[in-house]
């Protein structure tokens, strides 16, 4: 088991292997992610019950929660990749960070935007300087700094290292930001779903929500693979294996 995992990890570092496998995986993942998003949207928007307090407005939860949760997961996964890059100099980790940063920034933005649209009718305001909103905004700024850093270095390797350093410093700082804004101000409702404890959301709403979360995660997987393939083909366009591959097609 451990040996298989180790083999998989080493294979993951190889661009040709990844390019080959991802080409096969992408259509399947893409199909299921779109399917799940369509199902959960229809279920959430038309068939799940209306909320007793918030009315129909709450239905934006089926976009808001997946977007915000995936935006944090992407950041933490990027920081793991940053560690891998700095320790083992695995080129694939650099590709991963560069490809996933714009996706993470996009989902953080979607989360902020859908939150504003949700906040307008329920809190009566588009934006409040609440703890969770602020830490999500800071997350967005970190993403922007990471994306901005990509273009300041001439060599690809230096840019990847610089971005990895920023990502790691950011991940150390993010819990501090979270905690400090928590003490500062909180208006946001506490999380409705908990893995360990009882969820405070009815199961008729929970199932489409979980489906939409799964759909968005698969969608990120799908777009992430696409972006990584594009990045690999731009980095490796002069390599032998890539020329051979493109001449075959």
């Amino acid at each position, binding site marked *: 088991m451990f040996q298989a995992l180790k083999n998989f990890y080493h294979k993951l570092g190889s661009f040709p292997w990844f390019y080959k496998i991802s080409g096969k995986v992408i259509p399947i993942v893409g199909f299921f992610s779109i399917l799940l998003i369509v199902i959960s949207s229809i279920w959430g928007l038309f068939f799940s019950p209306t909320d007793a307090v918030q009315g129909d407005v709450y239905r934006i939860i089926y976009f808001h929660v997946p977007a915000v949760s995936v935006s944090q997961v992407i950041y933490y996964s990027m920081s793991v990749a940053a560690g891998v890059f700095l320790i083992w100099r695995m080129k694939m980790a650099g590709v991963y960070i560069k490809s996933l940063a714009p996706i993470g920034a996009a989902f953080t933005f979607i989360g902020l935007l859908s939150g504003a649209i949700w906040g307008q009718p329920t809190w009566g305001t588009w934006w409040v300087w609440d703890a969770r909103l602020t830490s999500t905004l800071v997350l967005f700024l970190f993403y922007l700094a990471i994306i901005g850093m990509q273009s300041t270095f001439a060599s690809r390797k230096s840019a990847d290292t610089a971005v990895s*350093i920023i990502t790691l410093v950011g991940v150390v*700082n993010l819990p501090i930001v979270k905690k400090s804004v928590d003490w500062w101000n909180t208006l946001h409702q506490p999380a409705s779903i908990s893995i360990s404890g009882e969820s405070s959301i009815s199961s008729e709403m929970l199932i489409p929500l979980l489906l939409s979360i799964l759909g968005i995660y698969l969608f990120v997987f799908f777009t992430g693979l696409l972006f990584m393939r594009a990045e690999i083909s731009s980095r490796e366009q002069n390599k032998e294996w890539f020329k051979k591959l493109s001449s075959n097609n």
Partner: protein
Amino acid sequence: MIYLIKILKKEFLIYSRKSSSFISPVVFFLISISLYPIGISNDPDILKNLAPGLIWITVLLSTLISFQNIFSEDYEDGSIELLLASRQNLSLIVLVKIFVNWIFSCLPIIILSVSSVFLLYFPQEGLKPLIISLLIGTPTICLFGALAGALSLGKNSITGPALMLPLSLPVLILGTQAINYSLNGINFSSNILLLTAILVFLLPIILFASVGALKLHFN
């Protein structure tokens, strides 16, 4: 140890000979502090409430003027390259450089922030938490500045400030909160302890990260 003392002396000499390095943050600080009453209101009650935040934000922004100084000249004249080649402990050298930069760019501002008592009607009993929180909070900001400066060496871009300001957010929150707490009669020592904890926790991490960032420029 001897090389550290030599570098410390050299840094002191450079900063003291180049007066703009410590005059420009001070001038920036004084100008902005005197702009607030004109731009916002000259009502003492309004200014008094805003003063803690205004002072902290101005200190944060005035460090933006000086954070490029930490490495940029050494980078341009090539002495960073020599330090990298010297096989000495780079993190300690970086620490010395940050320390001297803090003495020349932050310490004058901290002393000058006392002037807010006259300019912003800042209550005198708030001076103690103001000075303490600035003394403990600004080194952390200088650390972030060193990292941002090391990463954006030789480039005049927004990436340095864009990296440094979001990182400084916890320090800003805890610093202003300490002052507001003490003005409302609440014990503010927990905030000061947290600021110290952040400083001690981030110090080794940022030093390593800055050294890594410096090495990037010389492959």
